[in-house]
């Protein structure tokens, strides 16, 4: 098996995540799809780290994980706040600026 197969899977997961962000309406599911995209990028980092025999890629993946964890914490707090004021977790309902 070619180690580049991991890169193909990473590209597929990233694409699926991107579709999810556009198509799904529930803010929490949209968030999970963003996590999927971040993880796909991480898989690329780890695979390239292996291909190049260089651990810098793994350090990058580590930083991505930390930033993703921060993003989840703040994002979910925002979702809870929006839910509290609008009683809905749908991304379509938070359209106050439009009107």
């Amino acid at each position: 098996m070619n180690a580049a197969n991991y890169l193909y899977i990473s590209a597929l997961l990233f694409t699926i995540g991107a579709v999810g962000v556009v198509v799904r309406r529930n803010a929490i599911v949209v968030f999970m799809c963003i996590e999927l995209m971040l993880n796909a990028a991480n898989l690329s980092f780890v695979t390239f780290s292996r291909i190049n025999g260089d651990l810098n890629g793994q350090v990058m993946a580590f930083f991505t994980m930390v930033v993703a964890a921060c993003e989840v914490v703040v994002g979910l707090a925002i979702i809870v706040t929006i839910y509290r004021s609008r009683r809905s977790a749908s991304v379509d309902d938070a359209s106050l600026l439009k009107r």
Partner: protein
Amino acid sequence: MQLAIEVGQTAKPEAVMFWILGPLAVAAALGMLLVKKAVHSAILMAYVMIVLAIFYIAQDALFLGIVQVVVYTGAVMMLFLFILMLVGVDSSDSLTETIRGLRPIAITAAIGFGGLMVSLLGRASIGRNAVGLSAANADGNVQALAQLLFSTYVWPFEVVSALLITAALGAMVLAHHHHKADFRPTQRQLSINRFRGESLGSAAGLPGPGVYARHNAVDVPALLPDGTPAPTSVNASLEARGDMLDYKKFDLAEVNTKVEEEK
């Protein structure tokens, strides 16, 4: 022309592992898009995360594999499920599209993007064979990563710690509940709302659930005089969870015909 990045062949057990887990991970990710309930999405997401952790470990990234399990399937997914429970059971997606034609456009764009990525990877070449991490990991993966993290990347490491603290503070500020802002309505106010509200329909309280000859429980709606089910007679979260029964099963006409058939 060189096809695919020339990275050499991996050992057979890894190939077996990859061809079993890889398609399953992609299928689970697709399932995430297709299932209706957010909880099911979260569980499929956790599955993808675990598969990725196994991929990391298979690729000599032991530390990242363990961190993936601890941080993602442990902390992040738990947080997701916690928020799902907090936001409520009726947070399942309405799968109707609000922007017309969004879904076909999104899928077309995704196929284009995915095809572009895959064909790009298929034609790319880094011009040398895979090195592998056995040399870099000679003293152990964790030690080698620590060496990098606390020498070359020590400044980003500190910045990231500041980011973590900021995020924790931000979450506390955002999620803090201001008790003064929403006072609970008093009994007098509730009473006024009931009689001076939009209609007198619920002045005597909401209707009780349906009582039928063969079924008497809170999950069946009562019937209005014109024969339609009364929506307010069943708890809204029961309805959202899909636990509401159809009243037609206990409809008198229906029951009669069944009895006659049995005869």
